[in-house]
C-alpha cells in the first residue's frame, strides 16, 4: 500500500473543500470495506484518503412524512436493526442480511455499496425495486439521481469529481407490502452473488410487482417484461409464475467467470425469480426463506 494522507473532515463542506483542493488525487471512504481492500491490493493509489466517518450530518436513518433517508454512513447492520426498514423495505433488509457476514456488515454502508457500483453489489437490486434516489452534493449544489442512472456500468457511476453522496431517499409505501432477496452463492456466508433476484410486491388498490437482478448485467436492470406480465394478470398461478421467470431469465446478460458460468447464472435467475414471486405472494417479509 502506497503512503497517503488521511483526511477526516467534520462537515460536508469541509469534505467538499478537500475534494476541490485535491481533485483526482483524493478518494472517499465510508466503511472502507471496498476502499481499504483496493488500497491494499494497489488497485487504487490515492494521495489523499478522505474518511467521511466523522461527519455527523451523514449519520442516521431519517423518517420523513412520505419518505425515508438512508444517509451515507448508515451501515448494513443499522438497516437490519431498524424497525421501519423491516416494516417498509423488507427486501432491502434481506439483501443486507445476504451481504458478507455480521462483522463486515458492521462497517459496510448501503451508500458505499452502490458507489462501488460492482454488478454483484447486493444493495443495487432492492434499491432498484424501491425506486430509490441517490442524493448528491457538490460545489455546484445538490442533485438527485435515480439509482438506475447513478450506476452507469461496472465500477462506473455518474458521480462527478468533487461530489459526495449524502444519502439515498426512498418513498414510503403506505400499502401492505412484501419483498424478498434471493442470492445464488457458492457457500452460505461471505460470498459475492453468482446471481440474485430481488422482488417486491405492493398490495394497494392495484397489485404491483417489481423485480430486479444482481450480478447478471453491467448496469442495474429491472425485469420489465416479467413485471408487466405479473401486473397485468388478475390471477397469478403457477404457469404465470413460470412465464414470468422465463421472461426474467431472457432479460439478463451475464458473463462467465470463476464464480459461475453464464448458463448457470441465467438458470438461477429463472429459478430464483420463481421462488421470489411465490414468497412475495405468500405474505409480508418472510424470514429465512430458501436462498
Amino acid at each position: 500500500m502506497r503512503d497517503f494522507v488521511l483526511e477526516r473532515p467534520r462537515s460536508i463542506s469541509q469534505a467538499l473543500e478537500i475534494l476541490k483542493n485535491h481533485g483526482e488525487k483524493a478518494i472517499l471512504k465510508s466503511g472502507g470495506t471496498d476502499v481499504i481492500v483496493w488500497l491494499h491490493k494497489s488497485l487504487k493509489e490515492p494521495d489523499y484518503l478522505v474518511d467521511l466517518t466523522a461527519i455527523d450530518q451523514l449519520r442516521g436513518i431519517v423518517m420523513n412524512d412520505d419518505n425515508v433517508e438512508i444517509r451515507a454512513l448508515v451501515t448494513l447492520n443499522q438497516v437490519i436493526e431498524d424497525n421501519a426498514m423491516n416494516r417498509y423495505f423488507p427486501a432491502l433488509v434481506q439483501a443486507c442480511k445476504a451481504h458478507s457476514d455480521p462483522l463486515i456488515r458492521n462497517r459496510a454502508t448501503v451508500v458505499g455499496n452502490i458507489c462501488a457500483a460492482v454488478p454483484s453489489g447486493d444493495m443495487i437490486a432492492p434499491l432498484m425495486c424501491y425506486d430509490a434516489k441517490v442524493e448528491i452534493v457538490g460545489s455546484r449544489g445538490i442533485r438527485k439521481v435515480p439509482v438506475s442512472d447513478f450506476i452507469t456500468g461496472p465500477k462506473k457511476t455518474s458521480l462527478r469529481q468533487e461530489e459526495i453522496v449524502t444519502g439515498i431517499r426512498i418513498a414510503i409505501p403506505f400499502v401492505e407490502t412484501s419483498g424478498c432477496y434471493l442470492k445464488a452463492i457458492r457457500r452460505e456466508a461471505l460470498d459475492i452473488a453468482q446471481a440474485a433476484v430481488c422482488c417486491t410486491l405492493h398490495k394497494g388498490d392495484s397489485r404491483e410487482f417489481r423485480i430486479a437482478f444482481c450480478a447478471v448485467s453491467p448496469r442495474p436492470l429491472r425485469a420489465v417484461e416479467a413485471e408487466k406480465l405479473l401486473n397485468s394478470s388478475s390471477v397469478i398461478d403457477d404457469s404465470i409464475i413460470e412465464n414470468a421467470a422465463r421472461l426474467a431469465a431472457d432479460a439478463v446478460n451475464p458473463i462467465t467467470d470463476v464464480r459461475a458460468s453464464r448458463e448457470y447464472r441465467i438458470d438461477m435467475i429463472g429459478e430464483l425469480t420463481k421462488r421470489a414471486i411465490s414468497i412475495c405472494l405468500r405474505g409480508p417479509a418472510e424470514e429465512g426463506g430458501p436462498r
Partner: protein
Amino acid sequence: MKTIKTKTGIGKWLPRKYDLQKAEGTLQFADDLRFGPELLHASVVRSSVAHGEIIDIDYSEALKMPGVLKVIVGEDFPYHFGLYLKDRTPMAIGRTRYMGEPVALVVAETEEDAKEAVKKVKVTYKELEPVFDPVKAATTNSVLVHPDLHKYDHVDFITPQPNTNIANWFRIRKGDTEAAFKNAAHVFEETITCPQIAHGFIETFCSICKQDPGSGEITIWTSAQSAFTVRDIIAKGINYPLHKIRVIAPPVGGGFGGKAGMTVEALCLAAAMDEDLKGRPVKLFIPREEVLLSSWVRQGFVARIELAVDEDGLMQGIRNTFWFDTGISAEYGANPVRSARYTSMGAYNIPNVWADCYAVYTNKPFGGAYRGFGLPELMSALEVVVDIVAHKLKIDPVEFRKKNLLMKGQTTCTGMPMHDHALDKIIDKVAKKIDVLKEEPPIRKGWKRGKGIALAIKAPAIPADASSSAIVKLNGDGTVEVLAATMDMGQGTYSAFAQIVSEELGIPYDWIKVYYPDTQSHPYDWQTAASRSCWSMGMAVKRAASELREKLLALFAEYWQTPVENISIEYGVVKCHKLGKSERIDERVQNGFKMPDGILKGGPIIGTGSFTPPDLLYPDPDTGQSPKSVTHFTLGAVGVDMEVDPATGRIIINKVCAGYDVGKAITPINIKGQIEGGTVQGLSACLMEGMTYDEHGKLLTPDFTDYKIATIKDAPGEIDAFWEETPEEISPYGNRGVGEHSMIAPAPATNNALFRATGMRIHSYPLSRERVYKALKAKEKGETDFWEWPYALDLAYERAKKEW
C-alpha cells in the same frame, strides 16, 4: 505397584495448553516478533508467464526508489533445495516455470518501500509452451518442465524419470493381476479427478533471517511446522554446517501440511546472506494473495481404477494408475504419491494388486503435503468406485465393504500383514447411527435426500528413520518443562505431551509446560507431519518422563533409606506410606539432596528419551513389496446423511457420523476436535474447493474472495464423532495417529450419498452447486455419470464470452 497417582493423565478431558493465550491474543506469531529499526523487509517480484525464458530483469528503476537497498535475482543465490528431491530454487534461474514464481527479491527499509519498488522491476520473457494437464504432461513429453531432472539429487526411495515430467514413479506388483482380471466374474473401470486445493490456514507465511557477519551463524524465525527439517533442508541446500543454523519456530496459526517442510525461508535467506546486507535481519511476509503461489497446495489427482470381483462378490484384483499433478516441484510432493501407493488397496483384502503412481510436473504452483497426504484424493476415488461396484452387483454398500475388509493377518498391497483393528465394528456403528440403508423423505420441500458411507485408511508415510527425541526438566518448585520439537499448531499436541508427563510423573497437568520449538534448545525431531507426533514424539516424551521419575525416586529412596518400591508420586507430592512420609518437590531437585551420611547427591534432574521406528523396511522399488512398509494404519468409517436441491445444486449435510480406531485416546478433547475439524475440512474440499486457472496458467482463485472454504454456516447440522481403542503394539500407550484421517472419507461418503439421492455419479470434485446442478440436468437427459475434466474446464475460459 504403580508408583504414581494423577487426575490429569492420559484419557482425561482437560482444557488445552495455549488456548487461553490464543483467545486473549497474547500469543506471539512470527509476524508479531519485533526486531527494531535494524530490520529490513523483502518483497517478491513474480513471474507473469507460466513458462518462459528470462531474457532480462531490469531493476534500475527499483533501485532508485526510496528505502531500497538491493534487488536480488535467482543467479545470486543459485542453490537447489528439497526434502526428497532437490528440484527447487528460491527464485527462477534463467527459466520461469509457473505464473507467480519468484524471479527477483527487493530488499528495502520498510515493507511498503519494498512493495512499491517491486512494481518498478521490469522482466522480459521469451514465452515457452506450457503444460497444465498432468496426464498430457506424463504421457507426451511435448513440454519438459524440468529438462535437468537427471541432475537433481534425491533420496533413494523415490524414482524420478529423466527426460520426462515424472518426478516419482512408484509401483506395486503383488500377485498375478492379469490372471485375476482374466478369471474375474465382473470387471469394472472408472476414472475420478480432484483439483488442486489449498490449505486455507489463517496465518500466512512469515520468515525473518539473520546472519552473523562474524561467525557466519544463521538464525531463522519462521512460521514452520518442522523446525529441524527447515534446518536440514537449508543446510543441505546451501551446503552449510548444521550447527551454524538455528531455527526458531514461534506458534503457527494453522498448517495442515502447508508449512511441513521448507516454504519461504530460503527465499528470505537469499537476502539475509547477501554480502551487502548481512548482519541485518530481513523479514519476508507473504500477503494472502501470494500464499498459494509461495508454497505447495494439495496436488491435483487423476485416478483410473479397475476392479476385478468374483462370483461371491469378493475383490480379486485391482489395477490402478494415479497421476498426481505436482506442479513445478515435487520436492515434498513426491511423497504423498508414495503414501497413496502404500494404501492402493484401500481398506480391502485384495490378493492381486497392480499399481502405477506418478508425481507429474506441470506449469502450475506446486503440490505437496496436505492433511491426509494423498489419501483424501485416493479415497475420494476408490471409495466411490467401490460404491459403484456394490451398486452394480446389487450388494448393499455396507455388506460389500464388510465382506472384503482387510482383517488382521491379511496382507496389504505391499505384502505387509495388517494388524488388529476394529473397523468392522466401526462400520456397523456408523451404518446404524445414520441408518445408512434406510431411505428417508427429505426434510426440505422439493429436495432429494440420500445417505452414503465411505472408509478411511492411512499410514504415516515417514522415511524409515524418522525419529523423535525429548527432554523433560524438573524445576525447583515441582513444575516440569518439556522440550519436544513438535509444533502445536492447533491440533493440541502440547496438551497430549503434558498429559503423558502427568501420567508418568504423577505431577498435575497445570504444572507442566511445553515450549515451542527452537533447534538450539530442543533435541531433534524429524517433522510435525504424518499424524506421528503423539505416537513417535509421544514415545520420546514418555521415555524422558519415566527416566526422570526413576532418577527422582532413586534419590528419595536413598534420602529416606527405603526401597524404591515403597515410594510414590501422588498429585505432585512424593510419598512413602510405609514410613508415613510426604514431601513436596523443592529445590533439592536442583541442587541435590543432603543424604543421611551428610553428602549431597543428585543435582538438577532431567530425563531424556528418543525413538526411532524399530522395524521399517523400504519396499522393493520394482514390486513395492516389504514385510513392514509402514508403522501402522489408522482405519475408520464415515456416514453422511445429506440432501440436495435439484433446482440449484445446493447440498446440505444433515448429519455426519465418523468413527476411527485410534488405539488409545490420550487427549479425548483433541480427538473429538480433530474428527470434527477434519470432517468439515473434508466436506469443504468435497463441496466447494478447487484452484482454477485461466488458459494462460493464471490462478483465478488466489485469495478468499474466490477460493472458498466452508464457513460455520456450511458445517453439517450434526457431527457424531466416536472412536474405538484397539491398542497398537509399538506405541506409547497403544495410540495411533488420528490427526489427518478425519479428512479422508467425508468427500466420498457425500458423493455416494448424492448418488443414492439422485441416481447420478459425479466423477469430478468438487461437488460445487453449479456442477451438481449441471449433472442433474444431464440426468434428466438420461445420463448416469457426470465428469468434467478439470483441465478442459480451464479451456472453457478461452471460450467464455465476456460481453461487458
